[in-house]
């Protein structure tokens, strides 16, 4: 199968790979780059677990043609932590028991990061809107929304 060279910045690191023609970014990240943090869920843009940031904006990597990220910046959950230190969102998710099966978590974290990077003090409604394209079948969403508000330094109103 024909392959195309693609160069992009992956979690801050210059990356050059060959992508199969017509392949999606998620496949390239997982199978070629070796970053297993974004997950394959539905393959149709419904579940959001494959969300990555491209130039800081959330995108569905399963629907992104890999070659379109040429020269762009791609950030995934795998690049969130700083060495042994978890990102504040990861800490808040862990402390708030915001993951049960955990399959939606990578997409939730990246959708939340996109929101907080743009709007560090979101309202609850803004958080709900930011993750409106992410499905969770375990938590009922409230612990996730609470964790994002906690990471933003907002009170979530949750009783510990």
């Amino acid at each position, binding site marked *: 199968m024909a392959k195309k060279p693609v160069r992009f910045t992956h979690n801050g690191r210059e990356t050059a790979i060959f992508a199969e*023609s017509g392949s*999606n970014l998620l496949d390239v990240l997982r199978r070629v780059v070796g970053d297993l943090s974004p997950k394959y869920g539905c393959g149709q843009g419904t579940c959001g677990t494959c969300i990555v940031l491209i130039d800081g904006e959330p995108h569905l990597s399963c*629907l992104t043609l890999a*070659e379109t990220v040429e020269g762009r910046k791609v950030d995934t959950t795998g690049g969130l932590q700083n060495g042994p230190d978890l990102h504040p969102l990861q800490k808040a998710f862990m402390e708030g028991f915001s993951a049960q099966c955990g399959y939606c978590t990578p997409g939730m974290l990246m959708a939340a990061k996109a929101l907080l990077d743009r709007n560090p003090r979101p309202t609850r409604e803004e958080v709900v809107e930011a*993750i409106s*394209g992410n499905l969770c079948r375990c938590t009922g969403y409230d612990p996730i929304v609470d964790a994002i508000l906690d990471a933003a330094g907002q009170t979530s109103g949750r009783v510990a």
Partner: protein
Amino acid sequence: MITVETFDTIAEAARAMQDRTRYFGGGTLLMRAVNYGDQSFHRMVRARDASLRTIRREGSRILIGAGVTMSQIIASPDTAFLAPVARAIGGPALRNMATVGGNLFAPHPYGDFATALLVLDCRARTADGSDMALEDLLSRRDSIRGIVAAVSVARPAGDDFRFRKVSRVKPKGVSVMSIAAWMPRTGGRLKDVRVAYGAMGSAPARVRSVEQALEGRSLDSQTVEAATRVATEGLHPPDDALASAWYRREVAPVHLRRLLFGDGRR
């Protein structure tokens, strides 16, 4: 095997279209087809043409490039009247990818944005320079071979334009139906009314029976009731996993009434 060819201009991309070739816009329809093993095409053509991502005023109308995303629609002051429609489509990630041009070809039950454009006197411009009414394009969209380069829409005044999306999943879900209406008034009476439904047929379509019930009348209870009585006249809504045809017929008058009484104002 899927091959991908990228061109600098939309005109070059249009010339490269052949059998079993699909035009790649934002990817939300086409990559989904690829992921699910669609064998009906083996070649994708795309263009880097900056004009595809442009929004600009043209007199009393707005020209929107076919590659403009839903996020761009929300961000641009020129398309503020369409922002509530764009916000109703998917989450932020999808809106960063889904394009105006793609929505014109989105199969049932998608196409909420096209439903809104339909009432705004929308005309589609293809890469070869031809121009057609959106209604015409939607009626034969499966057989059109050209590439839509841009759409031109009228700018509604005040609260003349209304849109309502009905979904069973909150805060975001696929449409059971969507309704758009453009209701200009002259001397207190409705004039040149346009009403369209999405997800009530194979493609978004205008609802002539409702338009006729509203035309020339004032928007009072009597007029609204007359319009709701013919809300599904001549329509053949589909059954799908979201709703049966029966359910769609039952709820359409309810949601039309709510829209006409003001729920769905900008």
